[in-house]
């Protein structure tokens, strides 16, 4: 909790208007706007009081049909031994967010996976291809409005056997 407050205060001082204030008292995350994300990423990696040098996880979340998508970052500091979660909301129509692939190299494949499953484009990513699914796959399978394809390359996808369950 304390580290969240601290990071949030430092960010508010450095980048005014970037942290979205939240009503909840005990958030264990920080919600920010996506515009300056790349600069913020560089900042929280190098700032002497934060030093988030390890990007542990990047997750995509679909909050529902009415709401948009969200990207959640988990950072850890090997030096100062604290961690933080940062959430960035993106719209559903044309989801796009600055890439942090060149800040933390480990974010490369994580961002590709989020792109693969949710179709969120990471601007500035140098090699944004699908990670797990085949290259000719259509659609973003972990979105709520995804429809399972009937056929893929001549192979039937829906269940074919009756009475097996």
């Amino acid at each position: 909790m304390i580290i969240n407050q601290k990071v949030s205060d430092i960010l508010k001082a450095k980048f005014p208007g970037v942290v979205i204030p939240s009503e909840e008292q005990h958030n264990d995350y920080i919600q920010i706007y996506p515009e300056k994300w790349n600069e913020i990423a560089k900042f929280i990696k190098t700032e002497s009081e934060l030093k988030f040098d390890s990007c542990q996880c990047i997750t995509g979340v679909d909050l529902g049909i009415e709401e948009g998508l969200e990207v959640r970052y988990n950072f850890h500091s090997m030096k100062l031994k604290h961690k933080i979660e940062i959430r960035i909301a993106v719209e559903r129509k044309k989801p796009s967010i600055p890439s942090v692939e060149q800040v933390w190299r480990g974010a490369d494949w994580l961002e590709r996976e989020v792109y693969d499953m949710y179709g969120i484009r990471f601007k500035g990513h140098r090699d944004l291809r699908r990670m797990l699914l085949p290259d000719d796959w259509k659609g973003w399978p972990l979105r709520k409005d995804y429809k399972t394809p009937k056929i893929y390359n001549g192979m039937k996808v829906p269940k074919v056997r009756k009475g097996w369950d």
Partner: protein
Amino acid sequence: MGFLEDRFDDNIITAKLDQILSWARSTSAWYFQFGLACCAIEMMATAASRHDLERIGMMPRSSPRQADVMIVAGTVTLKMATRVIKLYDQMADPKYVISMGSCANSGGPYSRQGYHVLKGVDQIIPVDVYVPGCPPRPESLIEGLLKLQDKIRKERPLTKKK
């Protein structure tokens, strides 16, 4: 064996060439070292020293060109399914397929919602023996392999089909 029987010493066996061929094939069915998911772990355990597949003449080959049996061990995703077809086509005749585990049989736990899983490998390649289980224990796999051996032994490759 009619008039040939009992005319030689005890160490000479007479049989039809057909039978010898299918017997030889059944007891040296080399399988393709090809694991897709957790079933592959059980397949490795089957091949390892405790269960020892080589005692029934089965030995892993790393190339489809040298293999007779393909053990589809694990979940066949749609991405992999295209490769499975390719590998099956590269195997030389006679070739046999064992579908190992629920996923390869019918999609298993992915059979309802899996958007990326092929619901049964028999949709794309012909399957000889199905081994149920999730994953099957080595004993089940050996049972399936012995079933396959029985099947091969009953074949008559040189006899003309009517």
